[in-house]
Each structure stands twice: as C-alpha cells, then as structure tokens.
C-alpha cells in the first residue's frame, strides 16, 4: 500500500515539475507576449496544481494528516491562474503590443477600433 501511494505521489510531482519546466522553456522560446502568456497561464497552473496534489497525497497517505489548505490552494490556483493570463494578455493588447509578425488573423482589432471611435465621439 505504501509503495502504491509512493508511486502515485512521485508520479504526480514529477508530472507537475515537467509541466513547470515546459512553461519555462515556452517563456524563452515563444515569439510574442500572447503566446508566452498562453504558455505561462496554462501549463504553469497545471504543473503547480499537480505538485500540490502530490504534496497533499504525501501528507494524507504517508503522514496521515489531511491538509485542507492545500485543497483550497489548488482550487484557488485553478481559478486565478488563467484569469491572470487573461488580464495580462488583454492589458498588453489594449496598450498596443504588436502580435507576432507571422500571425494570420486579428479579430479583436476591428472591435477595439469601433469602441475607440465610440469613445471619442462622446
């Protein structure tokens, strides 16, 4: 039973660490801010969530201590991580950061243009 629990814990933590590493590589390799926030908000959230699940399982199955703060932390990260990425991406778009030069389509540009025109009219 302990071996099974240990395998589960090691697997989840290794999975989380690999995902965090993927995030770091993505932040270096990807070309513009939007693809970078995409990498950071998604895979970092998943990686940290898996590490926290591993820690929770370790304390629960090995030490016999059910720590509800870690569960609350997992829920909190799951809600706030992507929102952080969204807010960073939107703020950089509205302040005029250019897309990658090989980007094909920008569907938000006409909407923002329209909004700015309406705002200037008022």
């Amino acid at each position, binding site marked *: 039973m302990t071996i099974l629990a240990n395998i589960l814990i090691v697997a989840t933590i290794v999975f989380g660490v690999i995902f965090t590493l993927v995030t770091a590589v993505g932040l270096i390799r990807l070309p513009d801010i939007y693809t970078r926030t995409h990498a950071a908000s998604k895979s970092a959230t998943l990686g940290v969530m898996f590490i926290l699940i591993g820690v929770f399982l370790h304390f629960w199955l090995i030490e016999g201590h059910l720590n509800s*703060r870690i569960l*609350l932390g997992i*829920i*909190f990260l799951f*809600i*706030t991580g992507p*929102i952080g990425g*969204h*807010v960073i991406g*939107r703020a950089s778009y*509205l302040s005029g950061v250019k897309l990658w030069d090989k980007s094909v389509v920008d569907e938000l540009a006409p909407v*923002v243009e329209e*909004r*700015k025109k309406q*705002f200037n009219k008022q």
Partner: protein
Amino acid sequence: MKTNDVILQTTTKVIFFIIILFSIHIFFAGHYAPGGGFVGGLLTSSGIVLLLLAFDLKTVSTMLPINYTVMVAIGLLIALGTAAGSIFFNVPFFTHAFEYFTLPLLGKQSLHTAALFDAGVYLVVVGVTMTIIQSIGEDE
C-alpha cells in the same frame, strides 16, 4: 476607452470569499500554528484591495461602508483594554489568562485573552492598510 471587466469582476466575486475565509482561518490558527492577527489582517485587506482593483472606489465603499480610521482606533482600544484588564485582577500589566470551556458546537476549547489582543492587532492592520491604499487611490 471603457473596457469590459466581466471576467475579472465575476472571478473577484468568487475569490473574495475564499480570501476572507482563509484570513479568518489564519487569524484563529495563530495560537497553535503559523498565522495570527498581523497576517490575517493583511490577507483581509488584500481581499478588499482585490475588490478595489476589480470595481472602483465608490462601489467598494458602498459595499463595505467602513470608516477605516475609526477601525484603527477601535483596534488600539481593544488591544489596550485586554492589556489593562489584568490590572483589575492584581497581576502585572499584559498578563494573559486562559481557561478551558465546553462550547456547544466546537467541544472543549481553550479560550485565551491573547486572542482578544490579536483581534485588536487584526483591526489595526486592516485599518492602516486600507487607509493608506484608499488615501493614495482617492488622490486625483
């Protein structure tokens, strides 16, 4: 340009309660685990700051009609009162007392006057942080 903050505001409505719950937990855990009045107060004020980020100052002050300067004064009075209460029992200033009580839902718990002092610290920390942030934010 007026922006649409619906995602930020909706998440704030959910997250605010988690932060407040956790700050209350940290406040009450202070005697036996890491935490206490200072960290709990900072967490509560960070929850209110999250509200300030998602909504504007006027909306938040209608949501929570609290005068934070008065809150600081009440916190200091509570802290001073718990410290001075020991004088009436013929023991030195700041001597704390505790006793075990059997509460209806929680079972046997030790109630300590240090928790009241911590409540004073909590109120002072929330009041000071919110006063600083509000007075900076209001400045046009």
